[in-house]
């Protein structure tokens, strides 16, 4: 596909989708269908554009000027390998969300008025369109405009369900955090544009070449905090577990699966492409900070996810974890890139792992959010403790959710395993290159990654088991029925992606060639990672003396299938006589759903182990009838705290409110006094800055 016309077509699709909100004047349902159809069309065009760039001639950058809106900045779009790769990630999830969306919105809130439906359609198209074009931005102005558009549109979606006051509060927190981050990004970009005298990335690159080390590092850390706020790294993640669950589920899938990745795109573009020194490695403080931040986010994200009983909140915390895993790869690539004696191909392996995990996480987290959405649309309950037994009632949803759960737990043969395995290879390879404390940090990071994988598996054993297995705990769960086919199709699309990326990951390396080679100016992904055919993964560490490690995902899959088949046959063979149905023996009581494991109980051992981190609080109230031996009712309440929230945010909050209290106590409220202050301040400023010159 011709990329220029592809981009125009994509803009037309999203624009038409946004305009289709007007159809809600006549029929809200019509607006929903047409709007989502337009999103689907835009995403399919986006897929075409990105694939044609990724599989086309390497190293090509396409630039397309945009209409001049501002006298001081030329706006343009520019698509290279990295842009195209993230456009691919966005479009893949957007396809699923667009297919899934209309049915979800209709079943979840059948009483929604046309006004809300119009808003949702408009905001969805603006949101996806802004993300898609953000990755294709060719200058800082376009980038920031689309960045802001993305934030505003997602805010509208977060607060679009206005029946719940909690959503408005989540939206406000999101808005404040997002704009705090954007402010830092603005500073970082404007310092560069002011030096460059222009806004396009090429000019910024040239201007960044003349920066001294301190300025460069300061700008990087500004951008890291700015992008990190959007990506939800610990401790800037507090908005994420509130805002993501508040949005409609297919939007949650987009926010968690894609929007966070856009921040990763920004970080990669800013650090590797624009701000990097002309020659030589990146300053070492960058990579190590990103590595440590990534490791912290991964571990804390999954630990907090374990204690959540709201299914969408749990998934949102897992996004913090996965962003952490991606940042581990990014940080390692930053450390190793162009470093004499240690870098080489290992940096490419690390970046490949990060980018592959970006795609993989988009696929399985999208799938999980859509799965959670179909449960919620049928039961209107987000708390797992009130669900249960859904596997019989919603078999397709359960199966696909299980698929996503296996993928996110990094179990073979699905895609989560592949990228985490690659991250491990890069970490272990990197640990061998550094000695002393530096090597230790990398080894520690690898150990934490392993812990993260294990905890994620525990978390999803809980999430899947409590939601789908056992008996229904409430009437909501008992009367649930399977989701409509279009929602199943949306989930199945992402499920197929998880399987394909897991079983034949070698093909994905082909897609990663252009972004890795373009960003690192070194060998592409497939030159380093796949050695023997598309089925075999082999991290090419041989060049620097370590033995290569190889794994064939296809063979692993075949082996697993064969083992399952053998176990099944053996079990069948050993069975004597026909199966016999009998009631379960429960000491004379009849078993009820209250006998099942609850989510709280399942997570209890870990709550004990990590008690210093969770600071759990619990409260048990017994109601007895006269004697302590007859218990009428037990009321249990427990909660864990988010350390970042209590230790950082609450303190800041208290500080600000006590400061403003004291200002209020001291201010007179007399306007003459204030004008006098202004006059005095003017005077002092003139004296200080006027006389010195």
């Amino acid at each position, binding site marked *: 596909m011709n990329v220029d016309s592809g981009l125009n077509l994509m803009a037309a699709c999203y624009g038409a989708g946004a305009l289709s909100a007007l159809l809600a004047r006549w029929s809200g349902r019509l607006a929903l269908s047409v709007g989502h159809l337009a999103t689907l069309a835009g995403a399919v065009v986006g897929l075409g554009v990105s694939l044609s760039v990724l599989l086309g001639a390497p190293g090509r950058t396409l630039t397309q000027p945009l209409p001049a809106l501002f006298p001081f900045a030329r706006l343009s779009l520019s698509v290279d390998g990295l842009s195209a790769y993230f456009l691919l990630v966005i479009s893949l999830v957007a396809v699923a969300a667009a297919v899934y969306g209309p049915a979800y919105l209709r079943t979840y809130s059948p009483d929604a008025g046309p006004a809300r439906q119009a808003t949702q359609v408009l905001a969805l198209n603006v949101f996806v369109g802004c993300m898609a074009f953000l990755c294709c931005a060719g200058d800082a102005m376009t980038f920031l405009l689309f960045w802001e558009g993305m934030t505003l549109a997602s805010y509208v979606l977060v607060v679009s369900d206005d029946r719940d006051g909690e959503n408005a509060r989540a939206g406000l927190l999101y808005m404040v955090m997002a704009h705090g981050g954007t402010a830092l990004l603005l500073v970082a970009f404007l310092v560069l544009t002011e030096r460059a005298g222009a806004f396009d990335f090429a000019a910024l690159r040239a201007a960044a070449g003349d920066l001294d080390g301190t300025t460069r590092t300061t700008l990087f850390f500004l951008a890291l905090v700015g992008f990190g706020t959007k990506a939800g790294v610990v401790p800037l993640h507090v908005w994420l577990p509130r805002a993501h669950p508040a949005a409609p589920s297919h939007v949650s899938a987009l926010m968690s699966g894609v929007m966070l990745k856009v921040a990763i795109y920004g970080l990669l573009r800013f650090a590797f492409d624009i701000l990097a020194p002309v020659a030589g490695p990146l300053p070492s403080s960058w990579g190590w900070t990103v590595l440590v931040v990534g490791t912290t986010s991964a571990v804390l994200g999954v630990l907090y996810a374990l204690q959540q009983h709201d299914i969408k909140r749990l998934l949102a915390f897992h996004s913090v974890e996965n962003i952490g895993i991606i940042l581990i790869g990014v940080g390692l690539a930053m450390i190793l890139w162009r470093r004499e004696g240690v870098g080489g191909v290992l940096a490419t392996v690390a970046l490949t792992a990060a980018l592959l995990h970006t795609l993989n996480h988009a696929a399985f987290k999208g799938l999980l959010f859509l799965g959670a959405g179909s449960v919620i649309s049928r039961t209107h309950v987000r708390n797992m403790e009130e669900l249960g037994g859904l596997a019989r009632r919603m078999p397709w949803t359960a199966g696909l959710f299980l698929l996503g759960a296996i993928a996110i737990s990094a179990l073979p043969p699905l895609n989560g395993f592949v990228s985490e395995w690659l991250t491990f290879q890069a970490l272990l390879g990197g640990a061998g290159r550094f000695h002393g404390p530096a090597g230790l940090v990398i080894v520690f990071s690898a150990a934490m990654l392993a812990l993260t994988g294990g905890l994620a598996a525990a978390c999803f054993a809980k999430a899947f088991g409590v939601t789908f297995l056992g008996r229904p705990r409430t009437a909501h769960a008992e009367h649930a029925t399977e989701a409509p086919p279009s929602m199943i199709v949306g989930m199945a699309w992402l499920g197929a992606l998880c399987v394909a990326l897991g079983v034949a990951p070698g093909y994905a390396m082909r897609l990663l060639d252009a972004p890795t080679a373009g960003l690192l100016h070194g060998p592409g992904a497939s030159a380093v990672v796949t050695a023997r055919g598309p089925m075999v993964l082999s991290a090419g560490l041989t060049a620097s003396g370590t033995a290569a490690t190889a794994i064939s995902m296809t063979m692993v899959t075949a082996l697993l299938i064969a083992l399952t088949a053998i176990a099944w046959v053996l079990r069948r063979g050993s069975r004597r006589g026909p199966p016999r149905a009998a009631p379960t023996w429960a000491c004379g009581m009849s078993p009820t759903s209250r006998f099942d494991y609850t989510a709280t109980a399942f997570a209890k051992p870990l709550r004990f182990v990590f008690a210093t981190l969770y600071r759990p609080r619990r409260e048990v109230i017994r109601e007895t009838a006269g004697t302590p031996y007859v218990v009428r009712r037990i009321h249990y309440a427990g909660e864990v705290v988010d350390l970042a929230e209590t230790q950082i945010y609450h303190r800041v909050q208290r500080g600000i409110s006590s400061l403003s209290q004291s200002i209020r106590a001291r201010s007179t409220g007399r306007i003459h006094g204030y004008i006098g202050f202004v006059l005095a301040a003017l005077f002092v400023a003139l*004296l200080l800055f006027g006389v010195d010159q």
Partner: protein
Amino acid sequence: MSAETVRTIIDDLGALLLFTMILILAAGQIYRAIYAVAAQSLLIAIAAAVLATATGNTDLWVIAGITLTVKTIVLPWVLHRVVRRMNVRREVEPVIPVAATLALAVMVVVMSFHLSATLGPVNQAITGNALPVGIALTLLGVLVMATGKTALNQMVGLFASENGIFFTAMAVTQGMPLIIEIGVILDVILAVLVMAIMVLRVRSTVDADIAGLDRLKG
């Protein structure tokens, strides 16, 4: 006109402007302050006309005309009307004694001359002492706002302060682009109109002036 003559005229006009400012600061009745500010605007219109003949910049004629009609006639008339409509005591009630205000004003003027002596390059313009006078007028306008108890005083102060800014800009740059000058004038017109309406409305609903605003404090 030679550059020397222009400089002398502008210096003299600056002295008169300062004098009108002192009149505003020391005015015992609000009417006098309004007349003084109108006179001040008239002087600025004359200064614009003088600069226009000296530099041959026709834009300055336009500015002189606008200043004359708007600032010398229309806005003082609006203020006058407000005072009549409000129908309250017309004595100025200073926050601090007039003598103290005048002492502060002397300090401000001395300081402005001291400051502008350090701004060498700006002083090279043909307009002599226009810069320190402009700075002094601007700051003294704020002083009027700070010491007046009623909203009307503050309107007059804003008006005077704006005159100072206008004078500085005109004298130092010998005429900014016309569009900017007109923009500044429009700003003041709008500010005064809005404030006039606000004052009348507030007065008619709650019978309070800005001195009572501190009751709003939580």
